């Protein structure tokens, strides 16, 4: 039993574990155990483990599953979907998990499908992850060949189909209801919630969508138990987390660490601190749609409860480091341009508001900011918020903007008054 269950067995040469190699590291033993358990028992163990959704929202996974109608009267077929559409800026953890240990994800999905009585599973993968696609395809075929997928898995009454669906490039497909529309071959606009996918999902049937990293944890939880999993963590959230860091640090990368590791431990302990000649200005803790944190927050624990206490979110747990030689208005412009481009266009505040924000930021960055621009940005920050947009994309876009308006008031004013970007 390791304290780094997700990555301990990975090969250092960057090749994926074959099925034989995976089996030699207790691979598919958890599935054998789970096949003997009633579905509700699997759900209880996962709920008690305090595994929280690794896609960024952090909802308790076992609890998410508990909303699926069960038993003979439940609508069929039920679906299980791995969200591997990883496109949150600065995020690259699921790519590593799928490339290096696709069977871990598949086994996690099969056990989870057992827990909700699902018969059909999809891995929804972004197109740009070409290597992950080839390896996932091969691993699914290997799993079928070894009777881990298909009819009567390992001689049990449980059968599961699994398909790899490769997308074609659009950020909103990572929103779980937009993902369902994409799978149905429709334009991938989100759906109104309620109803939630667990009640009415793919083609109106009960569906669970979880992030790829979330599923990768499941075999270990079943094999070693909820208490062991909680014991890996430093906080109440269970398990380990794949943390990442990019930007002007000496060693950008990914590391599996106990949930609740501090930002300082990641920045200084793993990423080697800032590159020579650069100082830390601020960090974006969990992908583009999270509020900024600064050097005063370095001892904050990266977990789902600690980061909100300082006004941000852990999100995907892959941090973007912004140095003191980079213009913060430029960063904001870059972030908002991303969100504006990726808006699905369905609801007016997002479709119209994000390009408006982007144009203002571009003008300010180019020394053409005007009086009233800050107020216009702040107005969007208030208006494009939860409850006023059809999904969470625009509110996510406003998180960095709101925190940027607070933190960089001086920089904004300097750009507008001096009619130039001091960094260029």
């Amino acid at each position, binding site marked *: 039993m390791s304290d780094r269950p997700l990555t301990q067995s990975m090969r250092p040469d960057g090749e994926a574990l074959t099925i034989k190699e995976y089996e030699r590291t207790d691979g598919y033993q958890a599935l054998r155990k789970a096949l003997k358990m009633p579905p509700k028992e699997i759900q209880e163990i996962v709920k008690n483990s305090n595994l929280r959704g690794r896609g960024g929202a952090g909802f308790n996974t076992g609890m998410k599953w508990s909303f699926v109608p069960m038993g003979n009267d439940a609508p069929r077929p039920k679906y299980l979907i791995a969200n591997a559409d990883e496109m949150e800026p*600065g995020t690259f953890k699921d790519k590593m998990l799928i490339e290096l240990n696709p069977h871990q994800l598949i086994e996690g999905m099969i056990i989870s499908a057992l827990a909700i009585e699902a018969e059909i599973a999809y891995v929804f993968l*972004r197109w740009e992850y070409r290597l992950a696609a080839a390896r996932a395809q091969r691993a699914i075929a290997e799993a079928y060949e070894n009777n881990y997928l298909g009819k009567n898995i390992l001689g049990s009454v449980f059968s599961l189909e699994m398909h790899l669906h490769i997308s*074609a490039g659009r*950020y909103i497909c990572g929103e779980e209801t937009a993902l369902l529309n994409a799978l*149905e*071959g429709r334009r991938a606009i989100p759906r109104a919630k309620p109803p939630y996918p667990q009640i009415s999902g793919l*083609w109106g049937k009960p569906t669970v969508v979880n992030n790829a990293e979330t599923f990768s944890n499941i075999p270990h939880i079943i094999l070693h138990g909820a208490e062991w999993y909680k014991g890996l963590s430093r906080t109440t959230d269970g398990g380990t987390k794949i943390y990442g860091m990019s930007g*002007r640090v000496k060693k950008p990368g990914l590391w599996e660490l106990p949930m609740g590791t501090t930002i300082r431990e990641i920045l200084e302990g793993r990423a080697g601190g800032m590159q020579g000649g650069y100082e830390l200005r601020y960090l974006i803790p969990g992908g583009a749609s999270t509020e900024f944190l600064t050097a005063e927050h370095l001892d904050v624990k990266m977990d789902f409860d600690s980061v909100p206490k300082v006004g941000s979110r852990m999100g995907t747990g892959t941090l973007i480091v912004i140095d003191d030689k980079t213009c913060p208005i430029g960063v904001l412009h*870059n972030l908002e341009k991303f969100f504006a481009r990726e808006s699905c266009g369905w609801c007016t505040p997002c479709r119209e508001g994000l390009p408006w924000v982007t144009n203002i930021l571009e003008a300010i960055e180019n020394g053409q900011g005007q009086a009233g621009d800050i107020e216009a940005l702040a107005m969007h920050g208030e208006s494009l918020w939860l409850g006023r947009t059809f999904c969470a994309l625009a509110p996510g876009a406003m998180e960095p903007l709101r925190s940027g308006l607070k933190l960089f008031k001086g920089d904004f004013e300097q750009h507008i008054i001096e009619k130039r970007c001091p960094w260029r």
Partner: protein
Amino acid sequence: MWTVNGVNLNMLSEKETHEIAEELKQYKTRQAASVEALKIIQRSRGWVDDEGIKDLSAMLGMTPDELDGVATFYNLIFRKPVGAHVILICDTVSCWVMGYEKILAHLKNRLGIGLGETSPDGLFTLLPIPCLGACDKAPAMMIDEELYGNLTPEKIDELIKRYGWKG
């Protein structure tokens, strides 16, 4: 000329029709296969033209507008012709911090084109792409199906030569 479900398909090739029919077997509904079918058309023609939309929509039981609504939604389904190779350059935050503007300028200078354009010899189309998930190797880009990170002007010169750049 071949028919599928009584529909005459003048413009889809036999190969395209066959591949799409195989794909349809994998999906629960014909519409669900639309993204994959669009990619099949694109693999054989380089892009998805209006005739492709018309003929494919008939095969999938969708209206041409419905299918075009799906095709135009995705960054990587091309509804305009592209060059022999498509360069997707990541312009999102980590790549931007780590030098995107410099390598974009170098690429534009070398190829003589801007974003969204194709080089006069038809070799490269240059497109922006959101975060490729290569943030620890920023700045990064893809050429067709290959990912290239830790880009420098020298590396870019070497890469475009590898893909046939003579200029």
